[in-house]
């Protein structure tokens, strides 16, 4: 057994291929006290030397003494009370407002915290079915939704109306623009010939109402809708199955068998927050003897793939065949053609079919947006055959489904533009000049339009090519409404006046249509009066909707629809799609990116620096290639590849991705922006360059070659590695009584049912190593503790972004991350298990933050008492005492402490000068951008240069809850304190509470047999405990104990012998 395997796990868990290969670089990283800390580089300007270092130190100390820099006069501060206090407003008390964010045409229901009029934090709306995880208590929002608050405060957002109709760019204002536009559109009134509107996907009732009014004013105008990451295959598939556009709403909490084909329900689906919560319910139930089983056949490793029980990586040509084979096995009528399946595929389909049939209506099939229309249609037929419709699938009418698909629409628009039939083009949001399929050459066609008007948040690629640009109001600044995935309607209400004087979509449409009603709120009220609140007291209902964020019982009514036999047509045209790709040719699969989605979040530094769930890459995208292909082509991570397909080519850095299907290269979209702003410009590789409008998700027959260049990818998988030195030493001293140092534990559901302690098999003997007598006795009524359930963690990053927003955690930029200086308090470690070349490799996500050890190693070494314990068991970090020795970080076995090498908030994360150190910005000197500063949470100290920081268990939330309840004469109850990460988690994997409160949820969880302490054998006595992961493979994982690493392999003997599910 290799060293790495030995200490990391026992069955070979590893974070990176380099670690698995035990390269010297990794060994060096582990041995180094502070990897990436090179004091020499600071002095390299004049040649590094000890002598020079001492000279500089001496000089700076002398200067510090002479100038009394410590004795600055305090700044004179002013207090500015309201002139007239708004009713109920109390300064310093955060308020929450319900609103919604429309993302790709689907509302994400949100609850926004506003502090003295500034929105600072976004959470999910717990009263909305689309985002509650505990009804009325906890609502979850994903990483994107939470990061939109930073987007609103982005200083790079466009602030002016721009006129590019002449060579010189003129700066305008709204009045001037509306006058000129009024003149322009006044002439067109009644006809609108040559007028086209290109909108991003929307189902907002008010926008659709304004669309109707606009088209009434300009009857010949054409309305197009385009979204680069479109789910239109699903819509088209339902049209084929039912004869009309139908949307499926899944209820995963009722499904005991879930079979997915390229459908990332938990990661990128518009309703993924709700789906993840529902799915988790059927995972947690494992403790009561029930557990669902998820099958996924996928063409790129997805979040859902990492937590699926049975995962089959296939190339895109196989999806149709697999769906058809499954349809046949569950008895869908009218399916013909049964091509040969490989042994793995056969086993997958047989097991899935057997589980689906056995589930009795509690089984569901879903096909993702990249699959063929036929496969989607067939999935509807399968669900119907299974009796799932009405049980775990609800069919509703697709809102605004009366349109052509997005790719057809943009192709048609470009055709009209090149034919010179479009004189006036109004582009509402989106960024088509950047993200339209490359074969259309939208940018070129746009140049030929005489009057092009763009409404956008940024002066981006599209705006730069348009004649007029209108700054768009952010959704946190404007009125609107939106429909959630289940069809329920909610109101978008502004939290703040437009910072840069932007306008919303409905306001611009009202102006152009010459509507009498021009104010955003009045337009929304009109729509609601006409469509939703018809009778009764309008104001009363309106206020109630504003408060709840959703109109009660407004989810679309389930419809009765019967799928046509065989899904309304032959699935796939057999031969061509299913044939193996010719030798040396690859499939290219386009994927949404976890940092920037389709490119729209390029300027969002939080998202850029949140590691991708699987690759752990930050600030870049990369082509994901399988381990076997990489070996064959001798490609290493970081090598630049040249991809060529359909007569176009591009270069992109490679990332060797364990678990990636052989013959498929995954290409995340959204990078390589040229006009995104100071954060997002010229990062990564623009994969839109290869995209074609006819096959937007998959390209077959691509050629791949190494260029010989390499590119520095920022890989954080190996950062903060938990080293083995101590573990080896311990093993030597106390002998081999059980293995120590296992970070993640897991078992199969079958083993777990037999023996609930099975995840800990082989580790029972690992005695606690008593180094010190625990210095603390905790006799407070509160003892804060946490549990993290590895069984429900999906690695979605919602907690990481929540922590960043809540705790004023800075971003540092790519060059600093490369030096291991990332500041995130909460990281999610992703471990692969076993053989890297195995495409069905297993993954475990492990969120890791300060464990609040009762016997904390960091406290033992701090020379100034800057990290201490309080009576409630919190490991406190006192910034004003810290002198920056970093001993604590060195001594922390979990590697969760972060050091402020600079005033990060004052330093721009993109280094423009290339010079790292001179001219340091200083937070105290007001170098932090005035607009960015508005987002800070005033209840958390903004840390300065030279201090250590780490997770505090959201101590400010604890303090607030305690003070509020004690003021009222009571004490905190379970559920009064919700940490930011716990609040954000869509699967409730994180639970926080008082360990002294017997009925607290956290106490029950910590007592489960699955619970264990990470590195507990070091006698750190962490307050955070982890719950072991359970998997539910087919066949129950027989023989797992004898050959770990093999137990999730597909067992060929399925069917009657298979473990029953749920």
């Amino acid at each position: 057994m290799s060293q790495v395997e030995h200490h990391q796990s026992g069955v070979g868990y590893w974070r990176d291929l380099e670690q698995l290969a035990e390269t010297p670089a990794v060994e060096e990283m582990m041995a180094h006290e502070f990897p990436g800390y090179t004091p020499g580089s600071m002095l390299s300007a004049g040649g590094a030397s000890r002598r020079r270092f001492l000279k500089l130190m001496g000089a700076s100390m002398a200067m510090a003494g002479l100038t009394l820099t410590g004795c600055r006069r305090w700044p004179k501060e002013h207090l500015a009370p309201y002139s007239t206090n708004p009713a109920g407003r109390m300064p310093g008390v955060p308020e929450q407002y319900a609103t919604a964010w429309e993302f790709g045409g689907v509302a994400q229901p949100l609850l926004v915290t506003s502090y003295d009029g500034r929105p600072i934090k976004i959470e999910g709306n717990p009263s909305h079915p689309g985002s509650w995880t505990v009804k009325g208590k906890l609502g979850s929002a994903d990483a994107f939704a939470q990061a939109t608050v930073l987007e609103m405060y982005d200083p790079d957002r466009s602030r002016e109306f721009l006129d590019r109709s002449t060579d010189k760019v003129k700066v305008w204002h709204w009045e001037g623009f509306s006058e000129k536009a009024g003149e322009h559109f006044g002439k067109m009134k009644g006809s609108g010939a040559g007028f086209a509107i290109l909108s991003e996907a929307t189902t907002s009732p008010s926008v659709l109402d304004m669309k109707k009014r606009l088209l009434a004013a300009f009857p010949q105008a054409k309305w197009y809708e385009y979204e680069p990451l479109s789910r239109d295959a699903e819509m088209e598939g339902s049209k084929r199955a039912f004869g009309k556009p139908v949307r499926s709403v899944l209820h995963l909490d009722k499904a005991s068998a879930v079979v997915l084909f390229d459908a990332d329900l938990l990661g990128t689906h518009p309703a993924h927050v709700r789906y993840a919560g529902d799915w988790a319910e059927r995972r947690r139930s494992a403790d009561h003897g029930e557990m669902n089983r998820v099958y996924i056949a996928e063409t790129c490793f997805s979040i859902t793939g990492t937590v699926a029980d049975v995962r089959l990586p296939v190339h895109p040509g196989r999806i149709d065949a697999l769906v058809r084979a499954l349809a046949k096995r569950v008895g869908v009528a009218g399916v013909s053609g049964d091509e040969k399946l490989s042994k793995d595929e056969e086993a997958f389909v047989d097991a899935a079919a057997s589980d689906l049939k056995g589930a009795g209506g509690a089984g569901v099939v879903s096909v993702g947006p990249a699959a063929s229309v036929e496969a989607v249609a067939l999935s509807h037929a399968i669900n119907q055959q299974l009796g799932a419709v009405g049980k775990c699938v609800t069919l509703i009418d697709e809102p605004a489904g009366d349109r052509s698909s997005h790719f057809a629409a943009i192709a048609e628009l470009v055709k009209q533009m090149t034919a010179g039939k479009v004189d006036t083009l109004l582009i509402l949001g989106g960024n088509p000049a950047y993200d339209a399929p490359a074969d259309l050459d939208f940018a070129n066609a746009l140049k030929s339009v005489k009057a092009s008007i763009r409404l956008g948040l940024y002066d981006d690629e599209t705006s730069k090519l348009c004649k007029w640009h209108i700054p768009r109001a952010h959704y946190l600044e404007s009125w609107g409404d939106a429909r959630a995935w289940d069809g329920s309607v909610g109101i978008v209400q502004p939290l703040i006046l437009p910072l840069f004087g932007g306008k919303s979509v409905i306001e611009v449409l009202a102006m152009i249509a010459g509507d009498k009603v021009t104010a955003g709120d009045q337009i929304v009220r009109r729509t609601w009066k006409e469509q939703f609140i018809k009778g009764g007291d309008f104001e009363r209902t309106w206020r109630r909707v504003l408060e709840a964020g959703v109109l009660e019982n407004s989810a679309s009514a389930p419809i009765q629809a019967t799928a046509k036999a065989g899904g309304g047509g032959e699935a796939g045209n057999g031969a061509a799609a299913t044939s193996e790709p010719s030798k040396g040719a690859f499939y290219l699969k386009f994927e949404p990116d976890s940092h920037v989605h389709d490119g729209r979040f390029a300027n969002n530094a939080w998202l850029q620096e949140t590691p991708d769930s699987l690759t752990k890459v930050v600030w870049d995208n990369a082509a994901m290639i399988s381990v076997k292909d990489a070996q064959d082509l001798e490609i290493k991570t970081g090598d630049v590849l040249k991809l060529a397909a359909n007569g176009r080519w591009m270069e992109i850095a490679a990332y060797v991705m364990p678990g990636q299907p052989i013959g498929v290269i995954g290409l995340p979209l959204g990078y390589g922006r040229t006009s995104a702003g100071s954060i997002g410009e010229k990062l990564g590789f623009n994969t839109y360059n290869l995209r074609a409008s006819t096959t937007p998700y998959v390209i077959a027959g691509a050629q791949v070659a190494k260029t010989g260049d390499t590119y520095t990818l920022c890989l954080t998988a190996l950062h903060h590695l938990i080293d083995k030195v101590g573990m080896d030493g311990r093993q030597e001293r106390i002998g081999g009584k059980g293995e120590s140092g296992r970070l993640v534990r897991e078992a199969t559901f079958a083993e777990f049912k037999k023996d609930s302690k099975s995840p800990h098999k082989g580790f029972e003997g690992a005695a606690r190593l008593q180094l010190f007598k625990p210095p603390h006795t905790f006799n407070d009524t509160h003892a804060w503790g946490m549990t993290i359930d590895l069984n429900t963690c999906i690695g979605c990053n919602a907690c990481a972004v929540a922590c960043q927003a809540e705790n004023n955690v800075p971003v540092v930029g790519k060059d600093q991350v490369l030096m291991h200086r990332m500041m995130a308090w909460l990281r999610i470690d992703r471990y692969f298990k076993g053989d890297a070349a195995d495409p069905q490799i297993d993954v475990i996500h492990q969120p890791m933050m300060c464990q609040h050890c009762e016997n904390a190693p960091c406290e033992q070494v701090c020379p100034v008492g800057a990290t201490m314990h309080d009576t409630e068991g919190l490991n406190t970090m006192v910034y004003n005492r810290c002198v920056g020795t970093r001993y604590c970080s060195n001594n922390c076995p979990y590697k969760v402490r972060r050091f402020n090498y600079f005033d990060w908030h004052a330093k721009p994360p993109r280094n423009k000068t290339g010079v790292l150190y001179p001219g340091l910005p200083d937070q105290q000197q007001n170098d932090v951008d005035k607009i960015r500063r508005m987002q800070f949470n005033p209840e958390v100290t903004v840390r300065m240069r030279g201090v250590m920081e780490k997770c505090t268990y959201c101590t400010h939330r604890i303090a607030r809850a305690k003070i509020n309840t004690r003021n009222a004469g009571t004490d905190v109850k379970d559920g009064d304190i919700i940490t930011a990460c716990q609040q954000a988690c869509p699967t409730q994997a994180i639970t926080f509470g008082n360990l002294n409160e017997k009925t607290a949820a956290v106490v029950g969880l910590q007592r489960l047999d699955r619970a264990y302490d990470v590195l507990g054998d070091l006698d750190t006595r962490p307050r955070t405990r982890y719950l072991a992961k359970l998997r539910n493979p087919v066949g129950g994982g027989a023989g797992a104990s004898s050959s770990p690493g093999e137990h999730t392999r597909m067992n060929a003997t399925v069917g009657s012998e298979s473990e029953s599910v749920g």
Partner: protein
Amino acid sequence: MSEAAEATPSPGTSDRFVFPRWANYALPVIVVVVMGGLLYVPVAIGLGLSPKALAVGYAPTQPVPYSHAMHAGQLGIDCRYCHSTVEKTPFAAIPASQVCMNCHSVIRNKDADGKSPNPRLKPLLDSFATGKPVEWVKIHDLPDFAYFNHSAHVNHGVGCVSCHGRIDQMDVVQQVAPLSMSWCLDCHREPEKNLRPKSQITNMAWSPTDEPEGKGLSREEAQRAVGTKLKSEYGIHDQAYMTSCYTCHR
């Protein structure tokens, strides 16, 4: 040292092993620096601890010459009439101009001539008319890494006067306490020295000897008796908790 240099003029010996000539002057320079340092340290410490550095007595000029002595003292307006959020929130809110205008819309809003607006109230009247705030100068200013919560204190028996002094006797408000960490800890270690019944929070003239427990005792003994009783009655945390870092720093 220079003799040594001259004594070994042998060619081939590099000059770098020899102290340069200016080193002769190093000793007097070192003496001056050390003496200076010895003087400098106590001066720096002394200045740092002086009331001026701690801002005790800081009494900036405010935009409106508002007199607490008159409003709170003579007229007896309760602190909470203006600082209305003190029991509910971390901040004892500075009143909105509206609150002042509750009275001043009819009282003393005119100059002596009875026509033109009272110049002393001008910033206030302007604020009320325009909706722009009056910019008061902050006097009690804690460092940004210390989190003080008014509601947590006034709801547990710490009176206004304990930190702010006899505001009801000040024409111009000034800082009376150093607001230093050690000063905070004095009370966090022995809260009984400052606790009073919740009904007396805003009473600046309250004395522990007024309470039944304190009758006939010296002021100090009376305070101890009253404070000890209230400490258990109000469920004040023990000293270990009260002096934990996260109680005030986050």
